[in-house]
């Protein structure tokens, strides 16, 4: 299918090349790559393609005479498949910008290729804060969220509301360690104390043993420095062992709307975590969500979908101002120079290190009796202003930042 789309694109390019000679092939081609059928399919998946298409439609590109095409591919969360797809997209199918890419391993691989080929990479799905830190690139913008923002938002808010003793349940691999380290730093900076931690194997299935250790520690907060299935199972088993009833609270450091959906409100209720966007915050979002769900098998948009919409919107603005999409570095530079403004994520900026800056929000999962519909899941606890939401630019060790 991907190949067919490629041919179609080339055919279209030949047809209209003379009119738009300023673009590489007369066509702006957006490649949305993510997990189309695995663990993150509901969170990113086909929904991100829909979001990108909606952004293209709303941008009025067609009226300006721009030809924009959106293609999608599945990386199955494997870096080798992902880098293969991206190389072929750029070499053969003339894709100009890669969007979304959840799973940090794949995103880190893609950022290297995109830099080498001088195209544009807009990350919405991946979490690794390294993308704007040690591994930042002049061709990459990290749009929606990152691990630092989640650790910071959740850690801060919880310590400030009295959750000052922590025990970490950490997935024993690089990602889990980083999440634990970032959160522990925030907790201690705010005067909280880390009483202990246990490293559980990744992926794990039975967390009861580790939860019991967390219980014995008498910490007020059990921080879950893990992701996906591990987080779901830890939350589920914490409920089973009466840990939440016993007065200890869980803090999810990487929780998404799809996880809450999978857990169900009776178990997930009371869980606190940070996200960048929620569909039920205002009328614009609600209208978008309704339109989106109609085109995406009834699944409501996640913050990652919103991020894709926002990123594509801004990209199209920059490209149509530049009247060129060939030089990836120039496009990203233009995107950094222009303030961002779109209907979902509002006004914001893109920093020199490639970090998109906007407010983050602290949510709490509703109790079953408070929920009025299948997607009525969160209530807003606090807003983290844009200038505090992300890692200060100097601390990321990004080589692009002078000094």
């Amino acid at each position, binding site marked *: *299918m*991907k*190949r067919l789309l490629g041919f179609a694109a080339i055919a279209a390019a030949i047809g209209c090349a003379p009119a738009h000679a300023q673009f590489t092939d007369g066509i702006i081609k957006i490649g949305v790559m993510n997990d*189309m*059928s*695995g663990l993150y399919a509901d969170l990113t998946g086909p929904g991100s393609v829909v979001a990108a298409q909606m952004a293209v439609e709303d941008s009025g590109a067609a009226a300006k005479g721009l030809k924009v095409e959106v293609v999608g*591919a*599945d990386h*199955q969360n*494997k*870096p*080798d*498949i992902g*880098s*293969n*797809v991206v*190389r*072929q997209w750029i*070499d*053969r199918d003339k894709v100009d910008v890669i969007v979304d890419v959840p*799973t*940090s*391993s794949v995103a*880190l*691989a893609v950022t*290297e290729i995109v830099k080498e080929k001088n195209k544009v990479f807009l990350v919405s799905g991946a979490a*690794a804060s390294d993308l704007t830190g040690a*591994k930042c690139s002049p061709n990459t913008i990290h749009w929606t969220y990152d691990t630092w923002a989640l650790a910071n938002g959740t850690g801060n808010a919880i310590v400030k509301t009295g959750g000052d003793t922590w025990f970490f349940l950490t997935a*024993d*691999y*690089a*990602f889990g360690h980083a999440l634990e380290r970032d959160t522990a730093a925030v907790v201690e900076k705010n005067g909280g104390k880390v009483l202990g931690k246990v490293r559980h*194997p*990744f992926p794990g299935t039975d967390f009861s043993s580790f939860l019991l250790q967390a219980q014995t520690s008498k910490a007020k907060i059990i921080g879950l420095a893990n992701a996906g299935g591990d987080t779901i199972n830890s939350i589920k088993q914490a409920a089973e062992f009466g840990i939440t009833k016993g007065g200890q609270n869980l803090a999810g450091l990487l929780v998404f709307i799809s996880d809450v959906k999978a857990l169900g409100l009776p178990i997930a209720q009371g869980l606190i975590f940070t996200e960048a966007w929620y569909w039920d915050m205002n009328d614009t979002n609600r209208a978008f969500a309704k339109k989106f769900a109609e085109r995406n098998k009834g699944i409501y948009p996640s913050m990652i979908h919103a991020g894709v919409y926002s990123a594509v919107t801004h990209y199209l603005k920059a490209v149509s101002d530049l009247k060129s999409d060939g030089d990836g570095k120039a496009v990203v530079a233009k995107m950094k120079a222009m303030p961002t403004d779109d209907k979902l994520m509002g006004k914001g900026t893109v920093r020199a290190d490639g970090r998109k800056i906007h407010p983050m929000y602290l949510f709490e999962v509703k109790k079953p009796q408070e929920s009025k519909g299948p997607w009525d899941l969160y209530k807003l606890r606090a807003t983290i202003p844009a200038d505090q939401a992300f890692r200060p630019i100097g601390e990321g060790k990004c080589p692009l930042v002078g000094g």
Partner: protein
Amino acid sequence: MQRVASLQAVSYSERSRSGTVAFLVMVALLLVAPTVIYPLFLMKVLCFALFACAFNLLIGYVGLLSFGHALYFGWASYVSAYTAKAWGFTPELAILSGAATAAAFGLVAGALAIRRQGIYFAMITLALAQMMYFFAVQAPFTGGEDGIQAVPRGHLFGLISLADPMAMYTVVVVVFLACFLVIYRIIHSPFGEVLKAIRENEARAISLGYKTDRYKLVAFVLSATLAGVAGGMKAIVFQLASLTDVYWAMSGEVVLMTLVGGLGTVFGPVVGAFVIIAMQNYLAAFGQWVMVIQGSIFVACVMLFRRGVIGEIANLFGIKL
């Protein structure tokens, strides 16, 4: 596995002739291919073809089904990637260090696994591979889920830059052909004949005075080492080493490639690797359906054509390939 592998007896000259012709055809195809097919895809096929050939050395000629070959492939790719990136090894040294690691793991795992036969052998290799998978997840130098990224392709012998796809392709073809000939040589040596004797009837081989355990262990280590070369090469070509390569699904894939191509045929694994990688590449849009399709091919091969593509062709023409 004897029922698959034993083909009709053919005269030696005829056998070597058909083999030589097939080999020359393969070399010719490899020379022409990059003008028609995307080179990166070809390099991927060749890495897996070598991996499958190494695996086939065990199952096809000793009758041992290893369900844990991802261990050697994946760990070699980690070591090659790490030495190339962190210690600045040249590509050939990086691949060699990967292969050496695979050989060492092969020695340990092989010594344990050959203590049992048949299905147990398969389960033990699988379990040991899974154990090393968990180590790969936890070990700091592998980068956990992120893997080792941005591995430099470097300069061959410190001289020739491999950043150019054609230079890289040439290296991959040369390494592949060299290892292929090594495997061919092993199979047709007196040592290889003993291996086949063990496959057909181990008890008889023992009664003839062969220390079969030693033969099996040597074959196991050779197979692991060559799988390591394939893994190391893949890390350099794709500039990436990741958990995918050590996961048990990878062990399953190499079994599938060999089965599709033809167990116990020299050229089968190469054809099988091409078929499976092409399928994965062009069906990538179907996502998880690839898994279902692979599973169905497994079932179809076991039920309907146990000889595989090359095995069926060889059988049809009464030649040995």
